[in-house]
């Protein structure tokens, strides 16, 4: 039975996957993420034993190993939630824009959050995590609206190419303002630079706690718009014909995505390409139904960011490479592969 179903699914490339196959993949993904999270706690410049891990999770910091684990725990949790947010946001954005190249990094949303935060640090003495969160979310939202508005001008609406170019141009523009503001200010350039690289190294429970409400709302809004995104995927005319209020759906779903990216960016800095790569991989495994795709993208995104963090600690031992750098180096080739595979006419 299962086998026949799988073959059926293979026959139709983008068709429905049987529920059992999807459930299987979902289970595998959750298991892999759990494994990666465990690895993230265990691997580091200091080796720890299982007993230390268990003791540290229980709250004990009696020896160095347990203290190391206690430092790695919030970091792992942050990597998980940031990955979840970015993976989910990417899937929502690709659904909202019906655009395979949509990604908070490529569409300039991350840079919008970055510029807002840099302005806040430089001129308004921004320093609290809550402040970062609000400012980043507003910046991300403004950039998202701006890029979408530019990209959808003219004939044919928001084609993937126009959106990607508008995003890249806006990113370049915003980046030069970021440099202009931060370079002459020796006092803040260190803070700005380390934040801009994007990492989960400086994680603490408090910042995760402050980020949680933003994320919770973002996740909820995104997941609830899954069914509507399915109608959008049929095209605007058909969706309208089915009784969908297209503009409202877009706005609500995009709000969810912006909350997610804004919060993730505020705490971990701009991490590129997670939102691009993850939904593509997930679509291959569970199909195009957003009710499956969105949660699955969240889980796989969490896995990708944790894995990148662990990888960053392994390749540069005893130092580390920040997550944002690893994801860019892993993700850019995928972006290029997508661009290469598609026909120019559909770009």
């Amino acid at each position, binding site marked *: 039975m299962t086998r026949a179903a799988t073959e059926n699914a293979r026959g139709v490339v983008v068709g429905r996957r049987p529920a059992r196959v999807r459930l299987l993949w979902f289970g595998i993904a959750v298991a892999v993420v759990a494994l990666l999270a465990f690895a993230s706690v265990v691997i580091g410049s200091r080796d720890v034993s299982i007993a230390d891990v268990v003791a540290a999770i229980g709250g004990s910091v009696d020896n160095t190993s347990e203290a190391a684990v206690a430092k790695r725990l919030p970091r792992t949790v942050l990597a998980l939630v940031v990955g979840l947010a970015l993976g989910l946001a990417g899937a929502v954005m690709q659904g909202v824009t019906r655009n395979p*190249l949509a990604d908070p*990094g*490529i569409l300039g949303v991350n840079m919008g959050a970055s510029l807002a935060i840099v302005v806040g640090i430089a001129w308004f003495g921004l320093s609290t995590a809550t402040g970062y969160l609000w400012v980043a979310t507003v910046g991300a939202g403004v950039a998202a609206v701006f890029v979408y508005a*530019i*990209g959808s*001008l*003219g*004939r044919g609406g928001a084609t993937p*190419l*126009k959106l*990607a*170019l*508008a995003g*890249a*141009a*806006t990113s*370049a*523009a*915003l980046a*030069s*303002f970021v*440099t*202009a503001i931060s*370079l*002459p200010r020796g006092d803040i*350039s260190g803070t700005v*630079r*380390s934040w*801009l*690289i994007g990492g989960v190294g400086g994680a603490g429970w408090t910042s995760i706690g402050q980020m949680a409400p933003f994320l919770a709302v973002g996740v909820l809004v995104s997941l609830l718009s899954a069914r509507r995104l399915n109608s959008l995927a049929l095209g605007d005319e058909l969706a309208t014909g089915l009784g969908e209020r297209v503009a409202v759906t877009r706005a609500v779903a995009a709000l969810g995505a912006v909350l997610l990216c804004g919060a993730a960016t505020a705490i971990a800095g701009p991490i*590129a*390409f997670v939102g691009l790569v993850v939904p593509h991989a997930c679509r291959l495994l569970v199909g195009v139904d957003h009710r499956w795709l969105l949660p699955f993208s969240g889980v796989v995104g969490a896995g990708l960011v944790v894995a990148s963090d662990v990888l960053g600690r392994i390749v540069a031992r005893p*130092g580390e*490479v*920040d997550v*944002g*750098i690893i994801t*860019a*180096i892993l993700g*850019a*080739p995928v*972006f*290029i592969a997508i*661009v*290469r595979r598609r026909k*120019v006419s559909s*770009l």
Partner: protein
Amino acid sequence: MTATAPSLDAVIASVSRSKAVRARRRVVVISILAVLIMAVAAISLMIGNTVYSVTDVARVVLGQDVDGASFTVGRLRLPRMVLAIVVGLSFGIAGVTFQTMLRNPLASPDIIGISAGASAAAAFAIVVLGLSGTAVSVFAITAGLLVTLVIYVLSHQAGSAGTRLILIGIGIAAMLEAATQYVLSQAGQWELQAVLRWLTGSLNGASWEQTLPALIALLVLGPVLLSRRHDLDAMRLGEDAASALGVRIERTRLVVVIAAVGLIAFATAATGPIAFVAFLAGPIAARIVGPHGSLLVPAALVGALLVLSGDVVGQNVLNLRYPVGIVTGVLGAPYLVYLIIRTNRSGESL
């Protein structure tokens, strides 16, 4: 008959008349640009911490000894001015070459990753290998050529389309910027300042040793590009039309790409990637000169004017001294966005 249809002679006369008008416009525009460059160059020699008179500056330039001015103008401001003009010309001509060849204003080297490649290599050379001077230039130039090759190979399939090349370039640039960020995160405080200045694009500390390689590259590669300008113009019509007009597409492209990347890389090695100059020079030149004729010379002049005046503004207008790359970046960024808006609105496919 002759009353309804104009005679052949009349048609020829009107065509050659409009050609003459266009040619005159070109000459006027090019002369104005040249005069402006000279004026700004003179200003850049005169003003600064100490202001010198025209006669003092003229005497220094002619090789006479003037108390104080000989050092400030002759050793500090003169090489800086010459370097600004040389890199401006290089960025302008190379940028417009790419834009013309790929028939897309976004296809300039600072957007499709060539500058990002040179930057990453230079940052690596400065921070990790502890190099300086010419060795850094060699790294930047090699990386620029390599990145171009990679982008070209990746986008070359079934008639490489310009749009695909640009998107692939954007992806490569993202990756290289991540690499640069990593190198920066490893840098010590002193190197970090050097690298950051360099990455922003700055004429600070310009010397003749820095200027010479870029100048030689311009004198060698500039004429190569100019000699191909008619082929490039034909390629604006599309590859099929160009090859029908007798242009050998592949060979022209190879020669032109190598020359343009060489110019970009040498200029980048001297001053760092001065933001948006390569990108802006072409579209601005096209607006002033009009759509006919080759844009290479006007764009080169516009590039030189941008760098020179950007540096004068950055040095003198605000109480903080900004590197030229910041001035051109902040001015160029809105123009880039405006260009996208205009192209989208007019419904052209980019």
